[in-house]
């Protein structure tokens, strides 16, 4: 059975890729299995300079999920290009760089920095960061800001740009349309849902950062709903994510309209989750009567926009 699928910049052997921030730069997982099995790898966020991130504790367990407030810790875009990407180039797997920043200028600079490497095949624009210039409003919750940062990044990027949508919005379709208007080549969705846990003994929020991003199966219904809604109105390819732990979950995302998927938090529960899902996917597709991955995409809709690859 064919698991292949072609998205802008990405020739995927299969639609499964680890999500940004849950797989580092692949080194640790490369000790566990051959990374060339993966459809692609989305690496940890890159900012202009190295960032230490938030204070610890940075993670908390929640019902069917977890909260994280890592705070974009990363060695900076240049160190990533020099020290991490060459290692990943040893594997036969497309790499998606995750780009973050606090100002439009930072996004643009990180994107420009990446143009000097041929070791990435696409970029994922993480617009869930607060915009320091706009007083901390998130790029990802204000359509006009999202459109603007997409447009500016597209001007300098040498690879297709996927914009990663935040679920913390009243109207996800408006956000998708805004980044489409900004020239996005694709969407990835969803990022984490902002949440909090209290530490009753300490009488304060458990995470040092107070709030954190909720991920895992708890948010899967939110992700499916948002992908379904966006697919009704927007024709861009979608890489879906949010709570995937099994091949059945992947099928649910494909039916909702995702063209491929990313697996985040589940890597912590089972570090082999990505190859496990890749192995089980053909059986699950067959069980439900699908002949290939592409055959299942969007089939949960009566009428919907479809992404038609430009081949």
């Amino acid at each position, binding site marked *: 059975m064919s698991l292949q699928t072609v998205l802008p910049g990405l020739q995927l052997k299969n639609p499964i890729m680890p999500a940004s*921030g*849950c*797989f*580092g730069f692949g*080194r*640790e*997982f490369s*000790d*566990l299995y051959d990374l060339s099995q993966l459809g692609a790898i989305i690496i*940890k966020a890159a900012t202009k300079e*190295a960032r*230490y*991130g938030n204070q*610890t*504790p*940075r*993670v*908390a*367990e*929640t*019902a*069917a*999920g*977890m909260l*994280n407030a*890592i705070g974009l*810790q990363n060695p900076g875009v240049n160190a990533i290009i020099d020290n991490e990407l060459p290692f990943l180039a040893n594997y036969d797997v497309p790499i998606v760089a995750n780009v973050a920043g606090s100002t439009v200028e930072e996004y643009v600079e990180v994107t420009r920095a990446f143009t000097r490497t041929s070791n990435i095949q696409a970029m994922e624009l993480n617009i869930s960061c607060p915009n320091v210039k706009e007083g901390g409003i998130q790029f990802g919750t204000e359509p006009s800001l999202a459109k603007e940062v997409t447009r500016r990044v597209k001007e300098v990027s040498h690879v297709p740009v996927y914009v990663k949508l935040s679920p913390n919005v009243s109207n996800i379709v408006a956000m998708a349309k805004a980044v489409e208007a900004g020239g996005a080549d694709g969407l990835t969705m969803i990022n984490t849902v902002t949440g909090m846990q209290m530490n009753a003994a300490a009488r304060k929020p458990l995470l040092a950062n107070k709030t954190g991003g909720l991920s*895992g*199966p708890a948010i899967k219904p939110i992700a499916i709903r948002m992908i379904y809604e966006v697919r009704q109105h927007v024709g861009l390819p979608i890489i879906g994510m949010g709570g995937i*732990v099994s091949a059945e979950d992947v099928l649910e995302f494909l039916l909702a309209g995702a063209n491929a998927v990313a697996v985040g*938090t*589940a*890597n*912590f*529960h*089972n*570090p*082999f989750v990505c190859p496990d899902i890749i192995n089980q996917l053909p059986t699950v597709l067959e069980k439900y009567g699908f002949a290939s991955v592409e055959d299942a995409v969007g089939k949960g809709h009566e009428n919907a926009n479809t992404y038609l690859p430009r081949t």
Partner: protein
Amino acid sequence: MINKLDLTVVTRQSIARDTVELTLHGFKDINQIKPGQFIHINVGSESNHMLRRPISIADVDQTTGTIVIIFKIIGAGTDLLSKVSVGERLDVLIPCGTGYPIDQISVNHALVIGGGIGVPPLYYLAKQLVARGVRVTSIIGFQTKDAVFYESNFAQLGDCYVVTDDGSYGHKGYVTSIIDKYSIDYFDYFFSCGPTGMLRAVSNQLQDHNGFISIEQRMGCGIGACYACVVPTNDDTNGFKKICKDGPVFRANEVVI
């Protein structure tokens, strides 16, 4: 290299209040294990417990091919773990982290200082030191009498002082008071594991000595990929270490605690 394995529970025993000891079988390369390393245990489904629980390796038995872990029931995960039956299998990542570098240092007399659930990893450490001909003095601290465990195990390896916060058993006070009281300064390395407050007090008091400490933090992946468990280094480089991979053992004063 870290392995994901199903280990079989061989024995299960309550050894102190809310404290359970499990013997686990099924990891072939147990001679690879360094004292101070831990296993990262799956305690339930993704719905029940998304995150694994890190628990130190407390002992390794080369003859039976088993390892021992000792943990305290403090929340839902350790509670579930305490209910495994003999014969059941536990999904673990093993061995995780970087242990005490006992083969890279030259030591004659070691002072081992443990507090509460920081005591377990020090037992395998002490055994390994003794096996290398090192003299071991240990100070192990607990909250109260009911919580004390492994006193005789440590006593078999050398001098062992037990302290309890409330004085209900052994000496009353903190592990640091023993060091003062008995003027323990004849060791060349100290090795400590326990609550952060204790590690700070020990590191302060013994700042003129060489030593190693083992620290805890809430973890995500447990293998170095997610940056959940970082700790800043104690120098001017703005650097950091990952407790799950570079640690949990660090040189005293190597990281900010």
